[in-house]
């Protein structure tokens, strides 16, 4: 047995937390047999945004929950995704809020009762036990209404799941169970018997919910706490969804946190003002030259020897070439250097040079540079670093691109103005004008474009950073080169940042999109991705990453670290 099950007692680091969530998301996909689902901050989502799953036990606090509890919550979501048709569910939902809540919870239990795997069943049970103890600890059951709901949940789950109620709970709910039995009784067997048929089950659940709603209304009336009770329900330690968001059919905004405002995945308010230009179009030739001179001086000062860099990369690049170069081939053009073979071993037919089936390039590497404001101080070191790397790759006939991303404006520019004019609707998506820069394209030679590197010193270009869209753009360009092996190296000094977008969509809107993009690329697997962080650990987003110290940019150690990272991602 590993310590996996017990490690939760120790607080997890951000990195462990992240890895665990990725792992659970993978399990979510495997169990639900749906490749599109994902977890965002432990909430279920698919390509269109958050999935409305409103059962109180699905959202344990990840920072304070044991592993079995988190597993159970994920498994419960997976069962729901697998066994429940959301469209049918939506049609069957009653209008009244309390009734909706009960139907939601019952549908969740129905799906969980269909779990077959032993481990999944035990995780679900543990999650439920944990939820019960949280509920009792938060003393929500001390109100009449809280007790009533607790009883309904316990009784229906035990019937649908055929799992008896534990002794302690039995004693606890005995009274309210008795009180409820005329209301609940007639529905229990039909619930159990229709659990394989979503529609039939939902019909029973609706009837049950309607009966209970009457009772709940009466209780609330009596306690006079129609809103007060719910305020207590919203105890921060326990994300009980006893207050179902009115816009259940839209994604559920998180109360108080305002974290996940993603309605329909990522979008841009408008792309009309986005532009893509070459560095020569936006920086004057003299500036390019003077910048180039400064970078060359910095490179000389750092004096990183090229030979070791080339030889380290050589092995990986050659492996890519071998797929294409066919020497010692059995057909093709006669290879004069092999003719002696005819004499020495007459039976050996390998005297030809094959017509190599070369792709456009054997190997292609793209450097994608974050040109947001905070990167300004690193421009010179970055230039020196790229100077060495691109020269080394160029010697090995690797096709290289240097691309940069920034924006045309601060504070959203014309995009934000348009959005304002439209009345600032909620969740507008990305609110700025992208500016994508081609500093060196794969088609151009280093010799002819090396002065373009000087454009990095034009710091007026540096504004805001919208990484994910730039990454998708860089990858599209890379794929069009059809190299046998390709990698993209993203160099940045932090998370994506764009003030206007963050204000309108929440702080992590862009970071989420970047995570999703990187995860998707990783799953596609045709392109290696290396994240390089300047003074920051990019490991939370990029599976393969290198952290560089700002002072060391362009020195031997920094070049070597990137080369090692490149070797890793290219040799996969």
């Amino acid at each position, binding site marked *: 047995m590993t310590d996996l099950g017990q490690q939760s007692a120790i607080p997890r680091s951000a990195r462990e937390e992240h890895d665990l969530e990725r792992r659970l998301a993978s399990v979510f996909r495997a169990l639900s047999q749906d490749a599109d689902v994902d977890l965002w901050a432990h909430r279920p989502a698919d390509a269109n945004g958050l999935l409305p799953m409103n059962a109180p036990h699905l959202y344990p606090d990840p920072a304070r929950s044991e592993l079995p509890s988190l597993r159970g919550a994920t498994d419960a979501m997976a069962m729901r995704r697998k066994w429940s048709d959301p469209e049918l569910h939506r049609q069957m939902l009653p209008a009244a809020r309390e009734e909706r809540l009960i139907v939601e919870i019952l549908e969740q239990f129905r799906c969980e009762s269909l779990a077959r795997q032993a481990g999944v069943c035990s*995780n679900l049970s543990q999650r439920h036990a944990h939820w019960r103890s949280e509920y009792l600890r938060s003393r929500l059951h001390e109100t009449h209404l809280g007790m009533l709901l607790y009883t309904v949940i316990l009784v229906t789950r035990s019937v649908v799941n055929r799992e008896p109620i534990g002794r302690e709970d039995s004693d606890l709910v005995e009274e309210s169970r008795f009180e409820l039995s005329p209301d609940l009784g007639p529905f229990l067997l039909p619930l159990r018997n229709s659990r394989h048929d979503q529609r039939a089950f939902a019909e029973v659940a609706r009837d049950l919910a309607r009966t209970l709603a009457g009772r709940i209304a009466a209780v609330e009336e009596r306690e006079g706490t129609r809103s007060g009770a719910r305020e207590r329900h919203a105890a921060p330690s326990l994300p009980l969804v006893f207050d179902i968001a009115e816009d259940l059919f839209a994604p559920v905004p998180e109360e108080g946190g305002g974290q996940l405002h993603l309605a329909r995945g990522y979008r841009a308010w408008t792309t009309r003002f986005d532009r893509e230009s070459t560095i020569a179009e936006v920086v004057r030739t003299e500036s390019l030259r003077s910048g180039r001179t400064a970078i060359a001086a910095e490179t000389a000062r750092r004096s990183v020897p090229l030979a070791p860099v080339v030889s380290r990369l050589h092995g990986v690049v050659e492996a890519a070439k071998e797929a294409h170069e066919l020497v010692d081939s059995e057909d093709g053009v006669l290879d004069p250097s092999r003719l002696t073979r005819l004499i020495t071993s007459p039976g050996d037919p390998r005297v030809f040079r094959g017509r190599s089936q070369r792709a456009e390039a054997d190997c292609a590497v793209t450097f994608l540079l974050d040109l947001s404001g905070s990167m300004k101080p690193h421009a010179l070191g970055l230039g020196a670093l790229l100077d060495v790397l691109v020269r080394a790759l160029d010697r090995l006939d690797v096709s290289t691109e240097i691309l940069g991303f920034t924006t045309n404006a601060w504070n959203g520019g014309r995009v934000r103005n348009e959005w304002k004019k439209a009345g600032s609707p909620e969740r507008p998506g990305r609110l700025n004008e992208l500016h994508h820069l081609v500093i060196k394209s794969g088609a151009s030679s280093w010799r002819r474009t090396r002065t373009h590197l000087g454009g990095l010193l034009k710091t007026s270009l540096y504004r805001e950073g919208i990484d994910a869209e730039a990454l998708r753009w860089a990858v599209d360009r890379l794929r069009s080169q059809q190299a046998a092996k390709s990698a993209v190296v993203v160099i940045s000094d932090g998370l994506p940042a764009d003030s206007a977008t963050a204000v309108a969509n929440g702080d992590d809107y862009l970071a989420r999109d970047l995570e999703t993009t990187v995860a998707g690329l990783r799953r596609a697997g045709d392109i290696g991705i290396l994240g390089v962080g300047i003074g920051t650990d990019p490991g939370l987003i990029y599976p393969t990453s290198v952290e560089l110290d700002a002072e060391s940019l362009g020195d031997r150690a920094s070049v070597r670290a990137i080369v090692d990272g490149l070797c890793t991602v290219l040799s996969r």
Partner: protein
Amino acid sequence: MADVSTLRELFGIDADMPVPMLEDDSDLIPRIDENYRFDPEVTRAILAGFSHGSRVLVQGLHGTGKSTHIEQIAARLNWPLMRVNLDGQISRSDLVGKDQVVIEDGQPRTAFEEGVIPFALTRPMALVFDEYDAGRPEVMFIIQRLLERDGLFTLTEQNRVIRPHPHFRLFATANTVGLGNVNGLYHGVNRLNQAQLDRWNIIASLDYLDPAEELLVVTGQVPEAAAKLGEETVATMIEVAQLTRSGFAAGDVSALMSPRTVISWAENSVIFGDVELAFRFSFLNRCDSTEHPLVAEYYQRCFGGELDLDHAATAS
């Protein structure tokens, strides 16, 4: 053609479709695996290929047993069969043939040595192109010629036209049908163009066996497993395999457990008397170490207990 049997007699499938059998004793006839389970629909599609000369493309994920399916049918029909994998390594000359340098009477000269296609084409033989969607364009052009309606094959190298033998049959298997790389699963897979696909008369899809069927296969192949471990355990092993398959389809793991893997896991479990240890030998050690924690999660979901990863260095 020797005699004609029916689907029911040979494959246990409830239909009276006649199937042709050859009288042949070539070494290229595959060996019969008594425990092989035929998918009724795919079997009928492949048999249509054998009896009417239709060209059948079988599509399905890795490990669904596409090639084996064709092979086992050929074995029962007594039909010689050759499998050619069209992955990146095969070249035009392997298929068509090439001029070889030979020494005759002490003098070097070139002689044409025929490739797979001319060889198979002139014999009663089923030719199976595996990984059809990974074929390189210049290889696909050759096959395209083979797929032309009349089936005549021109050897430009020799100014010769080859007429196919009446019992020559052509099959292919692919991971994807013409969609190229579905969600990045298969590297080096090319989009099959419509013209290519149109030339296949029948496209059959083979999915994984359903768990109950797979249980029969595994316990059929490894009878000791059911006795020693219990059917319950074998069924759980198949559940783990299913999770790795959906994980693979989602791109979360780079290896999956095919029915073959489950069989070797069952065999090893019997040998070592330890299901968990056998799992490490049969599957876990094949996965990238960064994926071990995830595979352990899959394992936990099915068996309920934790998989001990301390033996394997984990990189997480």
